[in-house]
């Protein structure tokens, strides 16, 4: 469904993503992890068209390299950010409506917007301005706005960051429902290993923009190279 081939991104002398290639299949939950500064969010910026890069990215066998972000969104790739990106002076329903209005190939569907608001548990607050929401609601809203574009792939950037145990549990439930009930392929960047091993089918570990290993999450997290670069040195 999504194929990256020899993708490289340099900022001057710094190579943020180095010759990275991987594939994500339809319906999969694909995890990406790595230490801070590994190039995970940069990778999302490349896939979503915010940065130019070397190499190619194919979505459903169509080369999307060099396409503008709004065109990539319209093709069916949506994402969230580490820090919730919302429209502070718009209400929840308008913010999610914007996603459906501009991002969906089917045009604006009020009933779909209502469904998404309900799906992300924001029905009671739908008239609230997004600038007044707490962190969890902002995250839910950002996921809702992304879902409103009717994506085939949803890329989540550290959705659990700053959340407590209860919030992590509800976010994990939501991600499972997005994948299973809506049939949307998920790519998730996360630091919580429990989340990654529980949610994902494949896990990619990168460090300084380079692939360390990719495969079954349980096997990957027990790989000595991963433990060394990401989880720290072992005691023995």
């Amino acid at each position, binding site marked *: 469904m999504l194929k990256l081939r020899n993708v490289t991104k340099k900022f001057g002398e710094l190579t943020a993503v180095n010759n990275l290639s991987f594939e994500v299949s339809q319906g999969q939950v694909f995890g990406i992890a790595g230490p801070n500064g590994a190039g995970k969010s940069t990778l999302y910026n490349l896939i979503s068209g915010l940065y130019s890069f070397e190499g190619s990215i194919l979505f459903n066998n169509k080369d999307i390299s060099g396409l503008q972000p709004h065109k990539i969104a319209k093709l069916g790739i949506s*994402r969230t950010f580490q820090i919730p990106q*919302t429209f502070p002076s718009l209400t929840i329903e308008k913010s999610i409506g*914007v996603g459906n209005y*501009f991002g969906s190939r089917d045009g604006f569907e009020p009933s779909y917007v209502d469904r998404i608001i309900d799906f992300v548990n924001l029905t009671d607050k739908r008239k609230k301005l997004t600038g007044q929401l707490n962190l969890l609601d902002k995250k839910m809203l950002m996921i809702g706005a992304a879902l409103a574009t009717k994506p085939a792939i949803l890329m989540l950037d550290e959705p659990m960051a700053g959340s407590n145990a209860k919030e992590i549990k509800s976010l994990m439930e939501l991600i499972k429902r997005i994948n299973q009930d809506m049939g949307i392929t998920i790519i998730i960047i996360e630091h919580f290993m429990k989340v990654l091993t529980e949610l994902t089918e494949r896990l990619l570990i990168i460090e300084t923009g380079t692939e360390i290993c990719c495969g079954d999450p349980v096997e990957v997290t027990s790989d000595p190279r991963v433990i060394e670069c990401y989880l720290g040195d072992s005691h023995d």
Partner: protein
Amino acid sequence: MLTEIIDVIISGMINGSVYALMAVGLTLIYGVSKAFNFAYGSFYSMGGYLAFLVFGFAFLHNYLIVFCLAAPILFFFGYIIEKLLVAPLRKRDDWEVKVMMITLGMALFLDNSFQVVFGARMKSLPSILEGSFEAGEFILSYQDVVIFILSISGILTFRWFLNNTRTGMSVRAVAQNPAGAQIVGIPKEFVFSATFAISTVMVGMGGILLAQKYFVTPDGGWDILVKSWVITAFGGMGSIKGSLYAAFIVGMLEAFVGWQFGMTWTLIALFAVLLTTLVIRPQGLMGKRG
């Protein structure tokens, strides 16, 4: 004395309404794309000269025709300028400074072109509506009333556009969060070009309205550019509501200072108020702390 004060208030309100129309346009560009447009004053002069050209044809001697012709021309001109000169610079480092320089160059090019084409002498436009309302010593020209109504209508139309149209919604979204807007499918580059074009229409319309009172000259836009920037900074960079308040305050201040001390003092008074405001409240009246 009372009649004079009422005259001054009305004059301040009328100038304030046109300044509001123009400053909102400048605020719109800054709020959405963070670009400083130094050619803004020249677009004001362009509005006046377009009206002057249209009035050159006897059969087009009507302000409705002037507005209907000038608006699309100004929009198209602004859109093309943004696409050809400003948009390519955004992809480069330090694009903000480069945009300032290129729009400054554009302003000088336009002003000198006006001088070559129309000559250095002032051009006047006919009054939009002749006659006046008189009550004792108090006189209110119909022209001023129409200018006020048209300016306020322009601002209300703009407000309606922002709140009720698809493009308006995309403008608000990009202004608040460009990255977030793009990833939900909003074409940011189109929004930048459209806002530049809309602001060109707004300041050009202001040029047509004020040209009836203050004539059209090749370099007459610089005064407007300075005032629009004062209003934009005073109201709070990027805050449309702040610009509206600031425009009326500036209009009033100008009218009172001009009445009490003479017109040469008005710009000095404006800058004194701006500097004092920025010392006390650096983000302006309604701007956000950045």
